[in-house]
Structure formats: C-alpha cells, structure tokens
C-alpha cells in the first residue's frame, strides 16, 4: 500500500514537472535546438521509381511545405516528378497569407525517373522551418544518400 502511494506521488510529481515547464512563455523556453536536431531527415527507396523522404520534428517545430525543394545530385540524368505531400496544416498569417505547414512528422513521396543502373541516389533537400511563435531557421540544406533496390 505504502509503495503504491510513493509510486502515485512520483507519477504526479513527474506530470506536474512537465506541466511546470509548459507554464513558460515561448520566450522563456530553453534554447532552440540545433537545426540537425530540430529537423531530422531520412529517406529510403520504396522501389526504383519511388523515394520516401521523412522529416521528424519535436513538438512546436514546423516545416514549410512550399519552401521545400528536392534535387537529385547523383546519378546525373535522373529526374524527380512533383512531390506528393500529405494534407498540410493550413495557416493564415497576417503577413504571409495562406501558408501550409507540417508539425511533428511528415512523409513525402517523390516519384523518380531515369535512374539507369544506379545503385544509389544522392538527394539534396532544401527546406525551411520555425519554432512556433519563437524563431525561424534560415534556409537549410541536407544531402541524403539513398540505396536503391536492384533493377
């Protein structure tokens, strides 16, 4: 019985600690994350005609859909078709009009053509994102190496 009460007290304390942090105004929250930790990118080839790129973000960080660009660096000659994005969060901003963003995590499908006999793709992703109501990161670029399944 005593152990249960201690467990309950510990649980309530932990929840209250998290709640205590949520009292902070945006400007009081801890330092922003380095961009590599704020926007985690990975990618894979679903098959030789389809790539999947995933962006994962901590709470309150978001990615702009329309500021994201993809480009194949290798193999030369391979081309990307328009990306297929899932439904985004539409946000009307007084200064920027209608913008579309993603929180938490997004997976975008990239149709690709002209890979020839390549075994690997080097994909460049250019993107921009913010920590809501606090700050924005400048234009970021990442290069991703993606192994391709055999043709």
């Amino acid at each position, binding site marked *: 019985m005593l152990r249960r009460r201690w467990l309950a007290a510990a649980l309530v304390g932990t929840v209250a600690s998290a709640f205590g942090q949520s009292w902070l105004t945006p400007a009081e929250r801890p330092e922003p994350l380095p961009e590599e930790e704020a926007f985690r990118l990975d990618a894979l080839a679903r098959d030789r005609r389809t790539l999947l790129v995933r962006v994962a973000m901590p709470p309150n960080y978001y990615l702009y859909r329309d500021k994201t660009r993809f480009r194949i660096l290798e193999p030369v000659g391979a081309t990307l078709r328009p990306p297929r994005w899932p439904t985004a969060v539409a946000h009307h901003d007084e200064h920027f009009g209608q913008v579309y963003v993603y929180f938490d995590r997004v997976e975008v499908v990239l149709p690709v053509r002209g890979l020839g006999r390549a075994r690997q793709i080097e994909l460049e992703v250019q993107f921009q994102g*913010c920590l809501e*109501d606090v700050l924005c990161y400048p234009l970021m670029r990442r290069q991703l190496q993606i192994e391709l399944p055999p043709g």
Partner: protein
Amino acid sequence: MSLDRGIVLILIAALLGGLGGYWASRATFQVDRYSTPPDAARKPGDPAPELRARARDGREVALAELRGRRVLINFWATWCPPCVEELPLLDRVRAELGGAELEVIAVAVEDPAAVEQFLARHPLGLPVWIIDPAQSSEPSLAFGNARRVLPYSVLIERDGRLLKQKAGAFDEPTLRRWLAPDGP
C-alpha cells in the same frame, strides 16, 4: 499511513514537481553549450564586433557610431513570422524607453528591395539597418548566434561590450527588463 497523509504526500510531490520543472527550464534558458561554430563563440562580457550596414536613407552606418549609448540590436528578416510579430513590440518599447541613453536597431539581412517593400506595408519608427546578404554572410554569427536563427538580439553596453544575447522573440516583460535603465 493514513489516507490524509497519502494525499498530502501526493500534493507535495505535485508542487515540488511543478516548481522544479518551471525552474529547471528557466535555468536552461540562457545556457547555450551546443556545437557552437568558433566564430559564434562570443559571450556576454566580450567586446561586440563591428557591424556595418546601410540605413534606409542610403547612408553607410556602423555600430561604432553608437558607442556611449546602450544598444539593442535585433536581427530579423521579412520571411520570419516571429520576427515580424516582434517588431511592433520593439518599436513601441523603444518609443517609450529609447533616447540619448538607449537605442534599438532592427537589422535586416535580406534583399534591400524586399525589406523596403515590407516596411512600406508595415511602417516602423525604429531605425532599420539593412545588410545585403550578397555582400555579407550572416553577420549575427559574429554576435554569438550559434544557431543562425532569427530573430536574434544582443544588448550592447555603453562601452561596447556584449551584455546579453537572445535567440528567439521577446515577450514584453523580458524586453522591458532588458531595456530598463537599471537593467537587465
């Protein structure tokens, strides 16, 4: 242990946990010990670097001209929503507290035409300095902006030393604390 004592224990844990979470977060706010690029390692107490820009009337301006006044420099850009949300606050508090002893300057590192277009729609009373990114790469880095994020603000003491650094938008109480005659 009676039921009452159990409830008291849980309430104490909740109170301590809540306060602990709040203060732990506050304590980490000013700490910046991530992978800081060497040129972004400036910290409070260090001399502020020089900053050269163009004023809106086309004059060449430099931070050194403001030596003897306390100066808040706010780096911003038109594409950054928290920056443009913050500008009216900076403008208002500067109008109230600024003067011979204190100046607030908004430094935009962006295509000058984009900045002017923005300011035509959203007029500001505070001085705006513009740095063309084609001519200078991220100048806030030299002021300690390790994350290269915007907005980024620094408070510079009358003798040219860095007094405070902040990544992210101000709330009004924090800004007033920074700019108070006896602050921060």
